[in-house]
């Protein structure tokens, strides 16, 4: 029951849907400790992705689809999240390679590569109150689920659940990267918008796998 192109495109479609649905929520999180554009940025990006998705050739691999997301986000999102998430998808595509089907180990490798890409570009550490605080718990949970012999869907569910907890756990933190870092103590009590959106994207991956 490995994951192929259908899962990948389902994931992308579901991502676009949840980003649109949570656009205002993400804007409001960003208004509180940033500049109020995060929901708009991602919505613009995933809308552009959706417009290109049907151009994928019928024999496209998961890697092809992820690369399409990467280049589209990089060229339409802007801001901090555009290059960061773009790089994540780009590295994920690299990890997926030319495979048609991804097993549990490949899924974990994909998530790990994505997270490493964000760190490579943004240099954030855990606890800096960024999207990394969703991604790193997700990667760890996915690895643990793989080690425990779980299915791909279960691995992604574990990742999403950990990301959600990670996003919530950004609330008490002081930020050390991104715009929220200018706020010092005043960022405390607010959830990081990028961590929140990343948890939504990972939940979308899990939901797409459930259907698969």
């Amino acid at each position, binding site marked *: 029951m490995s994951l192929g192109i259908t899962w990948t495109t389902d994931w992308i479609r579901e991502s676009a849907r949840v980003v649109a649905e949570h656009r205002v929520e993400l804007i409001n999180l960003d*208004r509180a400790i940033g500049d*109020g*554009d995060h929901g708009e940025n991602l919505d613009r990006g995933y809308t552009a992705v959706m417009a290109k998705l049907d151009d994928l050739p019928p024999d496209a691999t998961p890697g092809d689809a992820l690369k399409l997301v990467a280049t589209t986000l990089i060229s339409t999102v802007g*801001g901090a999240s*555009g290059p960061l998430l773009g790089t994540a998808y780009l590295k994920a595509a690299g990890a997926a390679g030319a495979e048609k089907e991804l097993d549990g180990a490949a899924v974990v490798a994909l998530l790990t590569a994505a997270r490493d890409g964000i760190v490579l570009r943004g240099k954030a550490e855990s606890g800096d109150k960024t999207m990394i605080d969703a991604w790193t718990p997700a990667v760890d949970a996915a690895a643990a689920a793989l080690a425990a012999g779980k299915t791909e869907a279960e691995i992604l569910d574990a990742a999403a659940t950990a990301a959600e907890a990670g996003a919530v756990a950004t609330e008490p933190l002081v930020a050390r990267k991104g715009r929220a870092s*200018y706020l010092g103590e005043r960022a405390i009590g607010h959830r990081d918008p990028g961590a929140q959106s990343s948890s939504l994207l990972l939940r979308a991956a899990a939901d797409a796998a459930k259907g698969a």
Partner: protein
Amino acid sequence: MKKLINDPKNVVEEAVAGFEAAHGDLVTVSHDPIFIARKDAPVSGKVGLVSGGGSGHEPLHGGFVGYGMLDAAVPGAVFTSPTPDPILAATKAVDGGAGVLHIVKNYTGDVLNFETAADLAGADGIEVRTVIVDDDVAVKDSLYTAGRRGVAGTVFVEKIAGAAAERGDDLAAVADVAEKVNANVRTMGVALTPCVVPHAGEPSFELADDEIEIGIGIHGEPGRERIKLEPADKIVDRLLGPILEDLPFASGDKVALMVNGMGGTPQVELYIVYRHAAQVLADKGIEVTRSLVGNFVTSLEMQGTSISVLKLDDELTELYDAPVQTAALRWGR
């Protein structure tokens, strides 16, 4: 939200089209990807200067495109860094064979997107140098943050580096003088009211009727502290204090003083601010030899101001005085 706009989605596009129509003598505009270039770009043999960033800070950066200043400006969505594509396209469009300087305000998004564009331009054989502007002293501890923000001091960097490029300095020299300006300029701002980003439709933050935000960022990012409204002179003291301590500025220094409006501030208020800022500097034996008062780096309709002080030497003064002909800054021609 009350704005003279049509659709929030088209704000940047339509404003740039209006800019193109109004200033066709100075600039040409590429619409896809979107950037504003000097009419006569590329100027052969001259270092090209490209800046850019989120829209909503006008006249920065488009208003500073022209003779003696920027070769191109790349506007992102409102308060959102542009993506690498238009930065790359602008870089190619203004490369006159002597390389291109990217002037980037220090925000994660701007830094990352310009970085990608510079890599791609380099792959295409264009030599790119990048100067990161980070003049905002409101952000205290740069070790544990994304670093200081780039704010109104950017105008001085663009003006002076532009003059250096115009007189024929090579890329290394232009980059060096831009770094020198950045090293010698300090800024701090205050907001009396928030601004409303068109696509958000809500104020960027809330301020009570008697509150102001000291150390505001130019994207409506909350600042250093929120205090009760005070007389202008006291507010000026709060802004100038950290600025003067930071370099530090000393008695005998010659400086350029900029009092910048955040977009919604009446000019009478800016001059009231200027008056006291000049007094404080005079009292400390610091001589103001050049002045700018007006809207240069704004945050949409935000009411407030920022004060920038740039330490001048003969070289910087000469470059500052050199002719400039842009939509928002013009002298000498």
